[in-house]
């Protein structure tokens, strides 16, 4: 009673416990119970789940690989975004601006059908040239035989996703690095460390822990965007769901199962990110 009187004077107007309760989570939980119940009890759902299940592994594999490459690429580009080197900075900025201005679906198509084939052609040409030199002939021969026919679509899809997400992660790393107080770099440099040493031992470790939550959010985002690779006919969750619907016309079962699979992954991941955020806020 007494708290209600001062409620409006608080820094953040308080709400009662009932209002704070996560009702949205209850709705999702009920939906999940409904789907799980059906997967176990309804023959049509069982059929749909059995068909789509194969795609879970592909989705996870593509997501993890593309994300790993995107993090490495993003770190390289992010360091370029804060670099004073004219070429490094402009290369990184050009790349980031290009990628951020192109829809992810277009980047995936571009990566799969332009960048990867072109890259392989250049590598194979280089290999042919290298065979002329005895010292490099071994490597040259293996490069020479690179052929786009032997590269499966999921690898090409990974390349596209990683290309796009490297640009996003670059901006995350840039923001993280720039959020570290100027005094940290000054202290490191005043002790005689060079720029690279100061970055490696002082700035980046702090920047990393600060960008952990946004990096986690981007992992959820790339997991969702991995559904776009179904346009390349990679047999991920989305592609198999589409195939199942086309085959059986059971739209409800197909799309409910798909949505359920994605949600169960994204929601548990987002709980993980919240946990990390909480731990970081508590600090050391």
């Amino acid at each position, binding site marked *: 009673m007494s708290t209600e009187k001062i409620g409006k004077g608080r820094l953040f107007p308080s709400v009662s416990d009932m209002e704070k309760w996560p009702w949205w989570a209850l709705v999702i939980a009920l939906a999940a119970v409904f789907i799980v119940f059906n997967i176990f009890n309804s023959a049509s759902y069982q059929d749909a789940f059995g068909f789509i299940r194969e795609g879970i592994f592909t989705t996870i594999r593509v997501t993890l690989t593309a994300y790993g490459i995107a993090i490495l690429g993003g770190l390289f580009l992010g360091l370029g975004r804060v670099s004073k080197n004219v070429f490094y900075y402009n290369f990184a900025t050009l790349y980031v601006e290009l990628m951020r201005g192109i829809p992810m679906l277009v980047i995936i198509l571009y990566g799969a059908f332009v960048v990867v084939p072109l890259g392989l052609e250049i590598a194979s040409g280089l290999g042919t040239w290298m065979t002329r030199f005895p010292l490099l002939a071994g490597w040259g021969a293996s490069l020479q035989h690179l052929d786009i026919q032997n590269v499966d679509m999921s690898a090409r899809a990974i390349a596209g996703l990683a290309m796009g997400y490297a640009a996003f992660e670059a901006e995350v790393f840039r923001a993280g690095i720039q959020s570290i*107080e100027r005094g940290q770099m*000054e202290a490191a440099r*005043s*002790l*005689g*460390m060079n720029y690279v040493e100061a970055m490696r*031992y002082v700035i980046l470790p702090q920047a990393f822990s600060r960008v952990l939550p946004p990096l986690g959010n981007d992992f959820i985002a790339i997991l969702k965007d991995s559904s776009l690779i179904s346009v390349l006919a990679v047999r991920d969750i989305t592609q198999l769901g589409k195939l199942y619907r086309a085959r059986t016309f059971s739209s409800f079962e197909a799309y409910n199962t798909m949505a359920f699979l994605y949600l169960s992954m994204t929601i548990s991941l987002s709980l993980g990110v919240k946990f990390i955020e909480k731990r970081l806020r508590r600090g050391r």
Partner: protein
Amino acid sequence: MDDNQDQDVIIQIDHVTKSFGKIHALKGVSTTVKRGEVLVIIGPSGSGKSTLLRCINMLEFPDSGQIMVDGIPVMHKATNINAVRAEVGMVFQQFNLFPHLTVLENVILAQRVVRKRKREEAEQIALQQLKHVGIPEKANSYPGELSGGQQQRVAIARALAMNPKIMLFDEPTSALDPEMIKEVLDVMLALAKEGMTMVVVSHEMGFTRAAANRVVFMDMGKIVEEGSPDSIFKNPTEERTRLFLSQILH
């Protein structure tokens, strides 16, 4: 190095100018610091005293002039500034400890990376320096768990662990709560007595009287007056010095 240069001079500053956009922070400053000398720079805020200090180890790059540190022209392109900085310790107003590392790791890091010392050797020196500044028991704490005075003493230990020839102090007590100022000044005073060359930007009159060999008063990017603490505090010749001192001595 230079034959006609006084062997005892360790820092030589010649007609140094520096501007930030339209603000002229330094308008041709010249002074020298001798080996083992303690120089205290005082002056109103915006007078250029911190900028001058930061020019000595090139945290700010002067627009013109010449600075020699231990015979090395630090503004020269060919000079390896990292090697010079390793010999010049610096203590900041905001401590700038590395918050992701323990106190011990803070003191070890640059010894390992810059001096290439072995882990055991660096650790031994670090513990010795922490004892020197009076907080060996905090070796395994994180900077965030320490009081301001303790953090600043760790920062001093971190700089000393590099065995610098010169120590620069940029308002080392300005960010401290009053009750913690003395513990930091005591460490600095002991350091001065050991014969360390020190350049200190500070308004701590007690420390200046006890430790300074020479006091420089700066205003508007220029050195107005310099001399012994006694002559500056008791008989300032310049009106501006007198006015400034009357404002800070109360």
